[in-house]
């Protein structure tokens, strides 16, 4: 069918009906005068007619109400006004225990749009994330999905900040620290091995070239920007807060920066380019809820 001067030419009973102007947005639907079993609206206009009641919500669905004792027409069984907030949880696929990353109060959510960045994820791991509505201190059903984490570079980050090293990245030799005493008493050929502590952590160092923002895209070295970038990075490294150091190999350490971060200037560039390095000491398990909470990287203990 086509329109010509406001009329259509198909010799049907509506052939001379004028076509209305295309309107913009439907924002209200009223249903009446019957016993309603199911109501469904979708943006899909390609599928053929079907008498089957849809059983799943898909990307095209606008609303779906089954009237099973409620008037809910959305894809969640809660409304914003009844919630306190959402817990954001994460676990590795195949494991059972969740790590509670954050709690977002409803007051901080615009409508029901949640956006949260998990800077603490480990590269090469498949994760399952869950959004859990909380009402009256009680958690509702877990709404979850999975994703494989794959990062390119070496990252030093905390809950709010991520710094990426990509050029000139190096690790110094790292150590696995343990406290062992070797006691050499008289009269024995061999010493006595004494271990009374549980210390077992890693320590090491890393360094990388600090480049101006956008250098990898346009190759332009802005000296002033590099100076600013180094200052921001050094302030971040010396803020006395726990961090996550992770890389594209899947290494991940929950650590603190110790000692004095160093700046090694490249003479050939007129001291414009510099490598920043620092030493770290591991302070916990990067996938343990309690360690992350004690490190201040998550706000929930469980």
């Amino acid at each position: 069918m086509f329109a010509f001067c406001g009329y259509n030419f198909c010799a049907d009973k509506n052939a001379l009906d004028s076509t209305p102007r295309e309107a913009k947005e439907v924002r209200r639907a009223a249903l009446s005068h019957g016993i309603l079993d199911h109501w469904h609206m979708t943006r899909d206009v390609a599928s053929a007619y079907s008498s089957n009641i849809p059983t799943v919500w898909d990307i095209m669905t606008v609303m779906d109400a089954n009237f099973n004792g409620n008037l809910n027409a959305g894809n969640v069984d809660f409304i914003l006004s009844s919630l306190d907030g959402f817990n954001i949880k994460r676990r590795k696929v195949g494991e059972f225990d969740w790590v509670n990353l954050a709690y977002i109060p409803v007051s901080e959510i615009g409508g029901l749009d949640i956006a949260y960045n998990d800077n603490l994820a480990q590269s090469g791991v498949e994760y399952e994330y869950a959004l859990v509505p909380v009402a009256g201190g009680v958690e509702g059903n877990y709404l979850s999905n999975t994703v494989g984490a794959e990062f390119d570079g070496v990252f030093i980050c905390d809950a709010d900040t991520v710094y990426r090293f990509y050029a000139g990245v190096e690790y110094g030799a790292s150590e696995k620290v343990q406290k062992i005493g070797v006691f050499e008493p008289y009269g024995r050929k061999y010493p006595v091995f004494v271990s009374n502590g549980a210390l077992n952590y890693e320590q090491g160092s890393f360094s990388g070239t600090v480049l101006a923002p956008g250098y990898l895209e346009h190759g332009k070295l802005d000296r002033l920007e590099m100076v600013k970038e180094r200052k921001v990075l050094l302030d971040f490294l010396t803020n006395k807060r726990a961090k996550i150091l992770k890389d594209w190999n899947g290494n991940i350490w929950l650590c603190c920066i110790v000692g004095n971060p160093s700046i090694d200037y490249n003479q050939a560039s007129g001291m414009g380019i510099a490598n920043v390095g620092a030493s770290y000491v591991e302070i916990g398990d990067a996938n343990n809820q309690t360690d992350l909470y004690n490190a201040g990287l998550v706000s929930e203990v469980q």
Partner: protein
Amino acid sequence: MALTRPILLNVNAFDAANAQSFQFVVQGGDQVAANRLIVQRQDTQQVVYNQKIQSFKFQHDLQAGTLTNGVYYQATITTYNAAGDASNLSTPIQFYCYTTPSFAFNNLPANNLIDNDSFDFGVTYNQSEGELLNSYSFVLYDVQGVQLSTSGTQYVSAAATLPINIHYEFKGMADSTVYYIQAQGVTAGGTTIQTTRERIMVQYVQPATFSVVTLSNNCEGGYITIGSMFVSITGEVSPGPPKYVDDNTALDVRGDLDSATFSGFTISGDFTASLWGRDFDINEGDIIWLRFVPRDETEQPLMDIQVGYRQDIDDANKVYADCWVTDFTRYHSLQYYIYSPSVAKPSSTDKMQFWLRRIGNLYTIELHNLGGGS
């Protein structure tokens, strides 16, 4: 050298229908060659058991059926050396005999098939002599019997009465995965009990082809972005409260002034709308009324789409649906009218479907009698 006073170790409440071992400790003195266990009722001091056995073991086994359930007893032990000399009586211990309580899951679904990522496991405890449950815990195992999660020790209220129903919800179980679930408990008398370890299978009813949780891997940023695609729309019924019928599976809005209204959503452009129901009023008001309104809803609406249900005037056994599209932005509110082919008139129990599609500024209306009524 003489015999020292033995120390009879405490025993928890046990079922008199089972054998019970009484153990004792002897420190120093002659070697024990025999022992005598005396069991008396605590209330009447009546001796119900008094036997001496020849044994070097620091143990006296009481045969099943010797005592009676529901009775509070005390027991003492005396030891003898090879010469037949007796020790002093031990300090008595007290214990109950209680029938083995029942402790089993009460709400596992058919075939132990769970269709969700979470399940609230329920267990019922009962005991014929009235012994209460003191504490319990639920434990979830993987298919190899490795413990995955536990509720921890939970305590029962002192005011609880038999039978006692306890429950705990495990969340986050994975799809297509086998688990084992078991509950353990300790009675007021100190007896440890547990349910059988039940094998359960988790099989989600609806595989997640669409998820309200969106995840995005930021490769160069080193982080994962978690977002939501929640849609929360709740209708209103006027006048309220809503009347649900058909065993709470349908909404009755047959009254002249009754309607269910949905707002808080926006759809622009093309759409398909379907309404399933029954017993619609013929030649009454709109079955479906879609309103296009401006952003500022105090202003005049832009367009209405109204679907009605009509009697075919040429055939009393047929009905059809029609659709009026009123464009308020046109002079004299231009109207567009289409109607569906007629279908057999349904009974009040036959399922009907109104189907409306809009593509561009062209509409299609269909009415289907899906039958199924009695």
